[in-house]
């Protein structure tokens, strides 16, 4: 068991088309036993970071420490890590038992001890009956469990998981997600989890690291990331449907701050502590933070419904607002007809204001 310190980790790839900075100055402290997710779109550097921690890639600069031990230059086999791959990477010519035992065998652990460890781990992952089968005779979920078992059996200091659930069908994914959470509860091993699925990151993690273009955007608990996104990219990446963004200007009118969008004006409860240099700003509001209000309520915004979608327990309503469109999330019992005019109220305490319009526009708070 160890805490992990990632210190100004940098990785660039030199290609014929120029240098690509896959990872830029990533610094992160992970506590012993913590579950940390690296999340972001493909190409954001999350997998590169994980592969550097595993020792499968060499960083251009920076250091990695497990506890007091600098492991930056160690071979993967000397790091005492275990990794679960997206493809599971089960050895096709070995049985499940041989797959589980391989790491132990490579570490010179005797036959009896190996058999004992397999016997201990197999019931935990419900693999007892399939130990003598080959990977190709297993279902996707079973393969997934073998891959987990192969990592668990080694009792590693740090557990690395590279999109381990993304090859499973939706139902199995939810199930395995819960199993993974239970497993972490039980083992309390440091886990670093890479995913592009923000829902997996939200449900599993103690802390989430949101990445984009090789740069860490924000690190925090799932609550912090969701309710106080540091910039527009994080705000839009986390949450489904994603946060509504209205681009406009921040002004002071009659001593009170007002967000002026195309066709709408939203008074803000207070001015940001520091007014940005340019008035250009983006107002963000989550689909569940828009309420339907009586038409005569103060500050009500009148808008027209374009489409309503039923998503089981809830409904998503697409609503024309100014020159753009926002999504409103309501319980399924709220029925709105296309073409209908509704009055919307925005909860001022739950508005997000960003300076500028690009995805790196920082939150004003």
């Amino acid at each position: 068991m160890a805490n992990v310190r990632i210190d100004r980790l940098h990785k660039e790839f030199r290609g014929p088309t120029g240098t690509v900075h896959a990872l830029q100055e990533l610094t992160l402290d992970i506590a012993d036993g913590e579950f940390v997710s690296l999340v972001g779109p493909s190409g954001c550097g999350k997998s590169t970071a994980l592969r550097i921690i595993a020792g499968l890639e060499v960083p251009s600069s920076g250091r990695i420490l497990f506890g007091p031990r600098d492991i930056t230059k160690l071979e993967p086999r000397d790091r005492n890590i275990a990794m679960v791959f997206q493809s599971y990477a089960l050895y096709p010519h070995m049985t499940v038992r041989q797959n589980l035992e391989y790491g132990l065998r490579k570490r010179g652990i005797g036959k009896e001890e190996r058999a004992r460890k397999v016997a201990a781990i197999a019931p935990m992952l419900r693999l007892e009956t399939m130990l003598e089968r080959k990977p190709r005779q297993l279902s996707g979920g079973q393969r997934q469990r073998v891959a987990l078992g192969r990592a668990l059996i080694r009792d590693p200091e740090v557990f690395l998981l590279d999109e381990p659930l993304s090859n499973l069908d939706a139902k199995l994914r939810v199930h395995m997600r819960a199993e993974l959470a239970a497993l972490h509860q039980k083992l309390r091993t440091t886990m670093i989890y890479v995913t592009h699925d923000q829902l997996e990151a939200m449900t599993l993690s103690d802390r989430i690291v949101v990445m984009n273009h090789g740069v860490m955007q924000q690190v925090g608990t799932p609550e912090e990331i969701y309710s106080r996104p540091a910039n527009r990219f994080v705000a839009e990446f986390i949450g489904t449907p994603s946060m509504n963004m209205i681009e406009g200007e921040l002004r002071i009118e009659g001593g009170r701050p007002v967000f002026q969008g195309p066709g709408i004006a939203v008074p803000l409860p207070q001015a940001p502590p520091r007014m940005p240099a340019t008035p250009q700003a983006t107002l963000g509001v989550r689909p569940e933070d828009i309420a339907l209000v009586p038409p005569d309520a103060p500050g009500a915004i009148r808008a027209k419904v374009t489409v309503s979608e039923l998503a089981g327990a809830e409904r998503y309503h697409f609503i024309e607002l100014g020159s753009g469109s926002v999504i409103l999330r309501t319980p399924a019992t709220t029925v709105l007809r296309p073409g209908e005019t509704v009055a919307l109220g925005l909860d001022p305490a739950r508005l997000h204001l960003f300076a500028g319009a690009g995805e790196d526009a920082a939150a004003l708070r």
Partner: protein
Amino acid sequence: MLRLLRTYGLAMVLLTFVAFPLYWMTLTSLKPQTEVFRVPPTFLPATWTLEHYVNLFWLTDFGLLFWNSLKVCLLSTALSLAVGILGAYALARFNVRGKEAYGRLVLLAYMFPGALLVIPLLLLFRELGLTNSHLGLSLAYLTFSLPFVMWVMRDFFASVPVDLEEAAMIDGATRLGALWDVVLPQAVPGIIATGIFAFLFAWNEYLYALILISDESLRTLPPGMMRFVSTTDTNWGLIMAASTLATLPMALAFGLIQRYLVTGMGAGGVKG
């Protein structure tokens, strides 16, 4: 129905084309000397005889030739696989500068006509004391089999998922350990296919064997069999008997590994 007929008809024509020489060779080896030249020819021997086979072992050094050939072929196959597999793995996995150019160079080496290389090789081998040596002849065969093994195995390795060996390395294997434990078992069809090819090439090779070996006790089969042809007489029965026996190990090997060869030709079908 018509399509079926056409398919089988074509297969029959091809089969005749390929199989008739084998059939004729085997039959001739079983005919007495007097029947070999009979006109019209007999398609089944009128008299069956094993006299050529008996002569082969009692009157010629066929046994020694066969043994020498086997030694040289096994050695050159083992060498080309050992070196070729490591080279191909490096070409498939490592990011070395000029890797692509090197890969193409390997293919170019394979296309070089052997007759062009044999004299320089002879001069070089004489300096190194590698003439009249089975090791020397095996090394000379590497000029052909090694590029082939590297070229084919490179594609095989490229089709084995990198994840597998990365998983093995995290599990505690060295890179060579991962290659041995995890990658090679996935590439078995390729290893067998290229191994057979390397063996076959060496088994049939005539020119190098003739020029690099002059010591009669070290002769291999193809040049050795040429001595059954003299200026005044060609003992066809003897040649055919020797050819039949020389073909046998190959035919057997092909029969046994047919399944792998098909996979081998569809390189990349490793994941089955």
